[in-house]
């Protein structure tokens, strides 16, 4: 009796190409699964995807006519995803699983709001106001992330749990201030509006010089994201500190052996990770809503995690993935049922993580002779152990 077995064998080396194929292929498969789900919900998947694309990026006809509203909205949505994504990416490089970017974003937004409304006078010059808000936002997000960082560095507390739980504490903190709290405007669940000196410049503000910019709300926060991506790449791949981060991430024992200080690096990385998320919060309140609202983020901090992962922790690729998820949020706004954007995000993450396995293992279909009544491994999945020449994956 001959039957086939599928064996999973480790690959020696993952090529860059295989990695890209897995990401793109995973994305395609996720869209197919999403289409099936849309169909099951009674929608026309092709029409839905078409609508998402049109909404998020516009059509060639729009571009020819100089209308870039879709693209601009996508950039607005991508900005907090990019900043939080870069933050968690830095942590992930060191295998520090900060999934509290959402809470850190809220704390950053809170601190920036405090500066804009209650610390600096209304007529503060714009550069000074915005710089102070950005620094305060980064400090607040960084310190918020430093709590789980310190617990991890000194007591070995699992940061996944602590960063996750601190999200909810941050949500309540914001609620306390703006839901009928000290910062609430006449009992509404939002703070008073910021003075204009605390608004990040938007493209539309320059419409008097470039008429095509009229109505485009993309703001300076996206430039923060671009600068942060470049800085992160420089740190990770060109600096001594980034080298330490990568060594610690790959093999903490070797890092200790090389005399690297693990605790200090955990504290630093967590702080910067949280600071970037805090900057995302500042850019969101100063660039989009111009006030602090309860639950103003639809989960940017979580989308950032997915964007970082889909980008394979590459600080350049995350520019693309955050635009993708930003576009999804913009495009799916018009669709019923709501929540399609998050459904697709979830499916994408799921499939891409699954596809990642194929970059490290390959499936081999082989015939084998089965012995009647033979014991042992049933036909089907069989993991072939590696021989000493190659080191097994973790």
């Amino acid at each position, binding site marked *: 009796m001959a039957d086939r077995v599928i064996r999973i064998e480790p690959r020696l*080396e993952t090529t860059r190409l295989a990695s890209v194929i897995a990401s793109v292929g995973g994305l395609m498969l996720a869209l197919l699964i999403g289409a099936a789900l849309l169909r099951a919900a009674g929608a026309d998947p092709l029409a839905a995807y078409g609508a998402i694309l049109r909404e998020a990026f516009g059509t060639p006809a729009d571009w020819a006519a100089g209308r870039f509203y879709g693209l601009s909205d996508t950039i607005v949505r991508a900005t907090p995803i990019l900043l939080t994504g870069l933050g968690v990416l830095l942590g992930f490089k060191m295998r520090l699983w900060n999934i509290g970017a959402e809470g850190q974003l809220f704390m950053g937004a809170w601190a920036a709001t405090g500066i804009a409304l209650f610390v600096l006078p209304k007529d503060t010059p714009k550069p000074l106001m915005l710089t102070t808000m950005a620094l305060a936002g980064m400090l607040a997000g960084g310190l918020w992330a430093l709590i789980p960082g310190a617990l991890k560095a000194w007591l070995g507390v699992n940061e996944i749990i602590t960063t996750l739980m601190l999200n909810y504490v941050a949500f309540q903190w914001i609620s306390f201030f703006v839901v009928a709290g000290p910062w609430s405007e006449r009992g509404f669940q939002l703070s008073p509006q910021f003075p204009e000196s605390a608004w990040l410049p938007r493209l539309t503000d320059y419409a008097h010089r470039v008429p095509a910019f009229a109505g485009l709300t993309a703001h300076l926060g996206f430039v923060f994201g671009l600068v942060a991506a470049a800085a992160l790449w420089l740190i990770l791949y060109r600096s001594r500190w980034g080298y330490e981060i*990568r*060594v610690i991430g*790959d093999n903490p024992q070797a*890092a200790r052996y*090389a*005399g690297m200080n693990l605790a200090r690096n955990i504290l630093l990385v967590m702080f910067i990770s949280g600071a970037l998320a805090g900057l995302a919060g500042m850019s969101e309140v100063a660039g989009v809503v111009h006030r602090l609202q309860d639950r103003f983020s639809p989960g940017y901090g979580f989308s950032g995690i997915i964007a970082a992962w889909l980008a394979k922790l590459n600080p350049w690729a995350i520019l693309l993935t955050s635009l993708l998820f930003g576009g999804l949020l913009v495009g799916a706004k018009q669709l019923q049922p709501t929540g399609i954007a998050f459904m697709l995000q979830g499916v994408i993450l799921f499939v891409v993580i699954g596809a990642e396995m194929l970059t490290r293992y390959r499936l081999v279909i082989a015939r084998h002779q089965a012995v009647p009544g033979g014991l042992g491994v049933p036909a089907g999945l069989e993991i072939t*152990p590696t*021989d000493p020449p190659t080191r097994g994956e973790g």
Partner: protein
Amino acid sequence: MQGIVKRFPGVLANDHVDFTVRRGEIHALLGENGAGKTTLMNILSGLYRPDEGEIRVRGERCVFHSPRDAIARGIGMVHQHFMLVPSQTVAENIILGLDRPRFLLNLPRIEAEVARLAEQYRLLVHPRAKIWQLSVGEQQRVEVLKMLYRGAQILIMDEPTAVLTPQEVRDLFHTLREMARGGHTIIFISHKLDEVLAIADRVTVLRRGRVTAAGLPAQSVTKPELARLMVGREVLFRLSKAPIRPGPVVLAVEELWAESDKGLPALRGVSFQVRSGEVVGIAGVAGNGQSELAQVITGLRRATGGRILVGGQDVTNRPARVVIENGVGHVPEDRSAVGSVPDLGVDENLILKAYREPPIANGPFLDTGAVERHASHLVREFNILTPRLNAPARLLSGGNLQRLILAREVSAQPRLLVAVDPTRGLDVGATEAVHRLLLAQRESGKAILLISEDLDEILALADRILVIYEGQIMGEVAAEGADVNTVGLMMAGTRMPSTAVESG
């Protein structure tokens, strides 16, 4: 076994191997590490399936899907790493995984049977002892008993002597001969020529997955002949050493105490000195405090008492970085888990200790040009075989990885080099290269602390030998004319007066 082929990604582990053993013989399977010995035996014992080829047991064609199928045909394997449950007794471990008895466990009956087997083959171990109470040698006996209890007629022993003292090796050999006389077949996997010649009736040699000699009678071959078959070229067994010119004391360890990971005392008042230009060997059976000793000296484990002086400076319980900056190089026991960063490139692994200082460091940045020059220089000088300078370190073979680590540690120009099992798992050729490197360091005036489980290695390289047992130094002998029996007794815990002439 006929025409066995087994491929692993990128490696042809067995290339049309034919292998035949007869009833009642001790057949050695000899080869360097990575030659495919263990793979071949894993196929025979049902752990792997061959890609091609067939297995016949007593003329009958068999296909094994798991070790269970193999044991049903009377083939059992004792692995290098024991598969025992520490909290259970010998008898419980022996019946572990068996179908019988199905419901009621009659332990006393099983214990009696185990005791009978133990008696018959002189595998002395108490059936009711818990595994954690047993020494490594005794645990190995339990593994052998396990296979005998399952009715193994063909017993595969994978490098069984690696963890034993010389005395335990003698007992094991005695048992194996006894079993062969009783009609059992023993397949003895090894890369140590002396023991193969001492125990085997016939020898099969593998090199790079192919058979280079099949079933040679052991009486008719010599050690150099076997070595040539195994390595493919002539091998020098004793490296010539220049006479020692010990200089000033580089490392002084005074009454050092430390605990193991479990919080038990692992070092109990260890004192010794290493001078520049000499190799001091620490011999002992694995797990007697050697790992902890290396870790405490290199700043990776806290000392609970005593002092460590490097070049006269107290580095006790200072961070690893301070110890490194004091000129201590470290070739760690575990190459892949400690000594290298598997997913980073060879080039980035080579700067693991040099990245803080110029020329590699350029302010807060790394000088990528200098990293590349550093790497290409060391790869050439130390003959590290790598496809590219930035190929991930995990792709390197054991010997190449060890050369990488040595290149890195030696290029930092340390005063003291602490090397732990520097040739474990390396083949004869790679071992020779590592030994030459260490001796070259000695001649250039470095102090070398060699901690090794391989007594032959210590005898070949060390100028003075200290034996460690349960965290204490049992005594010191000069390597010149050292008596293996004396060292063996010390390894088993007998304290000896110092026979070495203390130099200064």
